[in-house]
């Protein structure tokens, strides 16, 4: 690692967007200070580094903040271009394809999935899941095209899309534990199921991904809190 590079990651252990940045840093072989934020009591540093969104992750490199996980990953790839493997291919067309699918993961997979997790009605939940599964099917096709017979979206090596999708693995596993639903069904989406196994075995991934049990506990606690809040507000309405 280049001398004199101070890297601080402001994050929260359960956030897949924070995991995404850890994955990028790990794959590049970069060391960093992992700063755990209390999101109910955000630090001065977080608020001054990301005044617009006040969210994690924020990467602070030699005092300069970079926000938004996909932007941070591209920044890491560009600022540390000589170090470790490249996270984006060198060909402009292939870079465009990688950027397209990275955006797709967030807009079409993560967004409806989060909606289903936070849904207050069965209808909302099933609509969210329907869209999630549709996106997963599309990503199966994307993996087939992008991998060109190799193991990753990035081809032989891990790239931007692998990191974007890979950041979700603990949550995908946690969802299976809680609801029995496999988001990457090995029968319907065999390539993705195999990719998930392959990716989780990588050292860089093991070091970045939170433990599934911890995520399960966290998700259950959140669900209980949401249910209690819903019940309380209903009581208030009736009173």
């Amino acid at each position, binding site marked *: 690692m280049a001398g004199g590079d101070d890297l601080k990651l402001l994050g929260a252990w359960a956030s897949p967007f924070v995991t995404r940045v850890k994955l990028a840093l790990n794959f590049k072989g970069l060391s960093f200070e992992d700063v755990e934020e209390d999101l109910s009591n955000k630090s001065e540093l977080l608020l001054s580094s990301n005044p*617009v969104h006040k969210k994690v992750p924020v990467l602070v*490199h030699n005092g*300069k903040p*970079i*926000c*938004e996980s996909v*932007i*941070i990953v*591209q*920044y890491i790839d*560009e*600022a540390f271009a000589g170090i470790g493997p490249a996270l984006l291919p060198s060909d*402009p*067309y292939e*870079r*465009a*394809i990688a*950027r*397209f699918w990275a*955006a*797709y993961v967030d807009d079409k997979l993560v967004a409806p999935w989060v909606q289903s997790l936070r849904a207050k009605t069965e209808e909302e939940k099933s609509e969210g899941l329907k869209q999630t599964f549709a996106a997963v099917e*599309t990503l199966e096709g994307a993996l087939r095209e992008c991998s060109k017979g190799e193991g990753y979206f990035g081809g032989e090596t891990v790239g931007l899309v692998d990191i974007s999708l890979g950041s979700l693995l603990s949550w995908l596993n946690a969802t299976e534990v809680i609801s029995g639903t496999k988001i990457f069904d090995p029968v319907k989406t065999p390539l993705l199921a195999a990719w998930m196994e392959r990716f989780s075995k990588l050292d860089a991934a093991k070091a970045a991904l939170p433990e599934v049990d911890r995520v399960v506990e966290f998700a259950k606690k959140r669900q209980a809190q949401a249910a209690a809040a819903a019940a309380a507000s209903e009581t208030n309405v009736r009173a």
Partner: protein
Amino acid sequence: MAGEGDIKLLGMVVSPFVVRVRMALHRKGVSYEYVEQDLFNKSELLLRSNPVNKKVPVLIHGGKPICESLVIVQYADEVWSGKGASIFPADPHERAVARFWAAYVDDKLFPAYIGIMKAATEEARAEKAKEALVVLANLEEAFAQCSKGKPFFAGDSVGYLDLAVGCNLFWLEAIRKMFGVTFFDVGKTPLLAAWAERFAGTEMAREVVPDADTAVVFAKKLQARFGSNTSAK
């Protein structure tokens, strides 16, 4: 990868995302075949080129499609890196800042002003207008930070963030005409107001940006088609 080869842009005249790409291609000095799409009756070519999202813009270069306006702009800057003007700065941190604000514009400004147009009640419209103004207040700060006293977000000449924001200006003008919302108040966002005029006056903007009235006509057609409870001026 020298040479321009076969370049096609699938677009729709009033789409700000298409205008964004046209601006980028203008900056690179690249000539292309523009193919207007009917979004209510999508062509085989569009559906084949963008099967995932079925949207414009799509750039087709040497038969290969590239989708999503910001992805296309970055592609154009990279594949034609020797041609025309550079769209992106060279410094990784400046690039990250430009990407951050471009994403912010698409996530927050576009839905707010489209929301003004689609609002079913005056309250909803006022709410969306308020949202848009908050975004513009943030962009005023961004401009101060990014431009460092120079005329454009990117400095001396237009760059990535100028294109990302600037492609929406004709729609903001159209909405001002339709609903009376003032977006660029010289008192509240003086830098942005000056930049907006300057941007609209560039040769690039004058060549590729449609008249605000074209957007007004389109908006009224949409309202007629989908029905809107409140009428525009």
